[in-house]
């Protein structure tokens, strides 16, 4: 286990290093932010001063070395547009994205597992087929378009739920969260549903496949023969055993939920880090783009590591030592 951890962390460090070089050279090769940042009327002296202030006059490798040195101490530069440290900007937006992603995961499990089990127990019934057709639809619908339809239906036509923003937030340990207030929760429902859609389809498929397999096993037959109530068989014996793949996949998908929140946040004007990324790309605010990407890469590495560890705890058949990390 320890060997696995050390190897994994060393590998992750290499990935982060390579990513930072790629991201830096890539991002800094594009556009000239000066054109965006300085008014066209500015004279030559003002221009030069601004370029020097942002360090854009140095050759590329010197810019990178300065960047790398600061990055190691947690400083990824200052936002060209907002004038505050980029990491701080990204981290400030992180709680909003996190709570949205978590609610989306909860929705995905709460809807996906019952439907998947239902479809798995009666794969040839009408309901089972409708559920599966629905999951194909869920895979096919583009997230942003569903988001727009949700806004049109529930915000514009029915007027039940707000279409954008975070609503009222309450600070918990100094971090603002929406889910604690009724107004904030109302703002969260549509974006979280939107973000959950794809994962609901995924969970349905996993739960259905798992149920079909498990339902034929001897211990389920035995439980049935013993005269256990069907509810107990499904709720305990089947549910427990289909959870392993569901938990693993959901863990791995958590990262992709955070990445996909870029889309949902743009549609619903949710002030998370995904929206920050899109705004920054469009404004050529390089340090923020780099900071977002590096923070996300780190997040991913941590998530993957935790999922691998959890997996081995949940399923004793998996041995980490031999597995290629």
């Amino acid at each position, binding site marked *: 286990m320890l060997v696995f951890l050390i190897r994994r962390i060393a590998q992750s460090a290499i990935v982060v290093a390579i990513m930072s070089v790629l991201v830096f050279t890539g991002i800094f090769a594009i556009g000239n932010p000066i054109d965006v940042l300085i008014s066209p009327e500015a004279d030559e002296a003002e221009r030069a001063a601004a370029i020097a202030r942002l360090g854009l006059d140095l050759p590329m490798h010197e810019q990178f070395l300065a960047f790398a040195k600061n990055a190691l101490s947690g400083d990824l530069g200052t936002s060209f547009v907002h004038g505050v440290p980029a990491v701080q900007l990204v981290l400030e937006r992180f709680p909003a994205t996190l709570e949205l992603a978590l609610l989306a995961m909860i929705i995905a499990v709460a809807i996906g597992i019952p439907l998947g089990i239902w479809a798995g127990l009666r794969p040839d019934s009408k309901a089972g087929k409708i559920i599966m057709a629905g999951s194909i639809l869920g895979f096919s619908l583009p997230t942003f378009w569903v988001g727009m339809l949700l806004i049109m239906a529930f915000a514009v036509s029915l007027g039940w739920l707000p279409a954008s923003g975070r609503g009222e937030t309450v600070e918990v340990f100094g971090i603002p969260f929406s889910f604690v207030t009724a107004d904030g929760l109302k703002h969260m429902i549509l974006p979280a549903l939107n973000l959950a859609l794809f994962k609901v389809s995924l969970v349905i498929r996993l739960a259905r496949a798992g149920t079909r397999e498990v339902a034929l096993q001897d211990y389920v037959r035995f439980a049935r023969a013993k005269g256990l109530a069907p509810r107990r068989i499904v709720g305990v014996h089947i549910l427990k055993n289909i959870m392993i793949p569901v938990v693993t996949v959901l863990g791995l998908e958590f990262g992709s939920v955070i*990445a996909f929140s870029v889309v949902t946040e*743009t549609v619903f004007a949710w002030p998370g880090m995904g929206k920050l990324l899109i705004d920054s790309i469009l404004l050529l605010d390089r340090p923020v783009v780099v900071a977002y990407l590096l923070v996300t890469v780190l997040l991913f590495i941590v998530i993957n590591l935790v999922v691998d560890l959890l997996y081995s705890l949940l399923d004793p058949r998996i041995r980490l030592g031999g597995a290629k990390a």
Partner: protein
Amino acid sequence: MTAVNPATAAPSRVQTPLKRFVVEFLDSRVAVLGLVVLVLIVSSALFAPWIAPQDPYDLSKLDIMNGMLSPGSADMDGNLFWLGSDEQGRDLLSAILYGLRTSLLVGFSSTTVALAIGLMVGMIAAYAGGSLDAAIMRLVDIQLSFPAILIALILLAVLGKGVDKVIIALTAIQWAYYARTVRSAALVERRKEYVEAAQCLALPRQRIVLRHLLPNCLPPLIVVATVQVAHAITLEATLSFLGVGVPVTEPSLGMLIASGFDYMLSGEFWVSLFPGLALLVTIVSINLVGDQMRDVLNPRLQH
């Protein structure tokens, strides 16, 4: 659609794999419906310049007076706008047909290029083995551990807007799937007797890989590729919606949906709704075809 080619069907009762595939594919009515719809969509996109009521790129044909017409209304000259028009007086049906061209172009070309690259890399990995194989597969693992949209955003932030750039980004995302699929298929196939037999015949390595190994690795690859086309089209639409995909001058379906977003809130739903439906129908039909192909080609389900 003719299910069985009479020329091959008549003389013998021997089932070629292709024939069995066709027959089994036609088993599912839903999949056949998907295929028919897909053929209709692709051909209407191909023939858009001839069937579209209007050339949406020709600014001289647009009349601002026809802006935001609702679906089914006609302009002064009696030209019918089946699906309404956008704010510049562009006929939405025509815009959708032309948008489909861009979307399908991006989807199919990026998948094809990625397929070729993945095929080559995967074959090399499987055949070379050893440290080269390990290096390639590690790269694939790392890339696949990041969600596609994140990689696409990074690449497009670097490359900038443009149809060609979106194709490059989508190719860079997809190749890893194919490389992995091909490698695992090739590793299984190369242990089979026919490869051994070919080696005993002292056939050149190149010939064994290209003529013997490759055709037998294709089925799983085709399944992955079908589903990936749908993914690529969705992803392109998403990127264009976010404003980092195709430029305004070559609107894809995603772009059309995005430009209708603001009008949607004020009740002019058609500008966004109809391109979205077109996108949805395209993707669903591809997925239906892909699902059935997977069932038919899956060796575990074969009888």
